[in-house]
């Protein structure tokens, strides 16, 4: 198919478009969630788009059983909050089932879920806990930051023969951007350089990609050339692209809205700090810009204070480079 045309789509619509295209292609794909997405329900209806009782643990297990029986289920947990009731099925079943049964059969499943704050939904409904899933060998993890990436990665997620957790950044669900038409799937494990630069590498996740791009603009104004990298998938993680950038810039900043403890930014920092060449290339300590170590509060100014943003990135990077 040609990829010449692009349209402007929102992040959320791009995901739905990607799912719809895949569902048209493959009748084994079906979608379950406690609230069915309107456009999918309208186009495909039952039994391919199901609205379910509130029982995310059962839905998650059912996806595993249906996948083992030849289907390619998509389960939308909706807010990531809700997936914790299904954590046994995620940790003990989905992540391990292919391995512990010696690879007998495949379990192609996509678990969709919305992460992030900004909507004044307080502690439970504003979490960004993707890093917790990185400890779980056996899951693939996608975390797109643009409509085009969202569509390209959801298609790859659906075609993958493993359980994939597809994290959707709620804060940018309405953000629009160009999305190529046609069958464009983006491979997992390929970071994207969202902006090229020479002085500092800023690796950012999800919403923070946009904050990092805004920060890069401000930094350019003071003569700092920032390269902004979006890993796009946390498992597999494309450390090679980040490493190459650090070899070039000698400075690494990592921006994530989640708290720093045992996080994706810790992971990337450690991988760079343990790589002899990258370590040698570092001209300054690694800088991390993270959420404060607190649950997310409700009151708007408080919430905005707990989450990091472009200003903190600018400050940290300027401090890092001493200018």
């Amino acid at each position: 198919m040609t990829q010449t045309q692009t349209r402007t789509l929102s992040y959320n619509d791009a995901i739905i478009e990607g799912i719809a295209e895949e569902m048209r292609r493959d009748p084994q794909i079906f979608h379950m969630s406690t609230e069915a997405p309107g456009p999918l329900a309208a186009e495909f209806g039952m039994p391919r788009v199901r609205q379910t009782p509130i029982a995310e643990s059962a839905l998650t297990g059912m996806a595993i059983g249906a996948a083992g029986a030849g289907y390619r289920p998509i389960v939308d947990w909706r807010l990531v909050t809700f997936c914790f009731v299904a954590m046994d099925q995620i940790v003990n079943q989905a992540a391990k089932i292919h391995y512990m049964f010696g690879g007998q059969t495949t379990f192609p499943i996509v678990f969709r879920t919305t992460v992030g704050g900004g909507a004044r939904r307080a502690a439970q409904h504003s979490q960004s806990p993707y890093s917790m899933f990185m400890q779980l060998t056996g899951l693939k993890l996608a975390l797109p930051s643009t409509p085009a990436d969202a569509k390209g990665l959801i298609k790859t997620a659906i075609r993958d023969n493993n359980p994939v957790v597809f994290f959707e950044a709620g804060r940018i669900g309405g953000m629009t951007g160009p999305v190529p038409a046609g069958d464009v799937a983006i491979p997992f494990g390929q970071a994207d350089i969202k902006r090229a630069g020479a002085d500092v590498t800023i690796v950012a996740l999800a919403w923070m990609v946009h904050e990092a791009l805004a920060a890069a603009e401000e930094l350019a104004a003071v003569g700092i050339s920032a390269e902004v990298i979006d890993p796009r998938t946390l498992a597999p993680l494309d450390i090679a692209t980040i490493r190459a950038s650090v070899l070039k810039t000698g400075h690494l900043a990592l921006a994530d809205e989640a708290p720093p403890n045992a996080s994706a930014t810790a992971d990337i920092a450690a991988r760079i700090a343990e790589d002899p060449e990258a370590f040698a290339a570092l001209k300054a300590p690694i800088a991390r810009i993270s959420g404060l170590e607190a649950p997310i509060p409700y009151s708007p100014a408080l919430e905005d204070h707990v989450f990091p943003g472009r200003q903190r990135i600018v400050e940290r990077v300027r401090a890092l480079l001493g200018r």
Partner: protein
Amino acid sequence: MSQLTPDRQRQMLRQMLTIRRFEERASEGFRAGEIYGVVHAYSGEEAVAVGVCATLTDRDKIISNHRGHGHCIAKGADLDRMMAELFGRADGYCKGKGGSMHIADFKIGMLGANGIVAGGISIITGAGLAAQMDGEGAVAVGFFGDGASNAGPFHESINIAAGWKLPVVYVCENNQWAVNVPAAESVPTPNVADRAAGYGIPGVIVDGNDVFAVYEAAAAAVARARAGEGPTLIEAKTYRHRPHTERIDQPDARPKEEVARWLEPDRDPIPRLIARLQAQQGQLSDQELAEMEAAVQADIARAVAFAKASPFPTLASALDDVFAA
């Protein structure tokens, strides 16, 4: 309603009115951008919280779900601090950290609203265990929806409470919908109360829009719990007047005629109660009713004024209360 003096009955009406007006003001505040995030209004279901809580004392504990304002008010929470919490202010119940979905008042035994469907059911069961160990006859009451009755924690908790004869009353507010899923599609039996048999406990169905019927059912369940005979599952059939949340674009799959039917005065719990009190000699005069309305409106206005006068929390407070000392 022999147990209830006319004064108590009027008090119950006043609580129900307070809930209704509070929700109306919360909805208004949400649309005006004074209140943030998510608001789930309890309008239409007032008779359940009020009927149940009328059987409780301060020692007794309740827990709520996402639709929590009514339970707070029925248990005696302070309107000012509730409204301040919705407004995200420092004098709110949670110092502005919780918002609509996390109002609690442990001093009066209100263990909190909760953003997780069925998330509070095991917590209140633990409060019931504590009450049993205390041995002072207190009870614990869990409020949750028809949707929550499909979730695992409902089953695990009631099963344990039944086996251990815990003094817990499980109150399912069957408003017939969980967001856009009708209970008829998610609960395979005609009634949520039918689930009680699987735990060997009474399952009681009650008209959730008749405050006295609710009161009676709850009083029996509470008496049973206090007597050490274990839990009861009460299903209160009711209906929410509002869409699932106050979000402007909240989709609502409920048939319009169905909604309209439940808004009529013979179904709406508040007109029903007013009609009943007025039908009985000396229970409620037109003037008393007007005074009550005015008093309630004044309470709400005072709460809003309190909320607006309260400062937003300081940024530094974001790091307070992460851990207890």
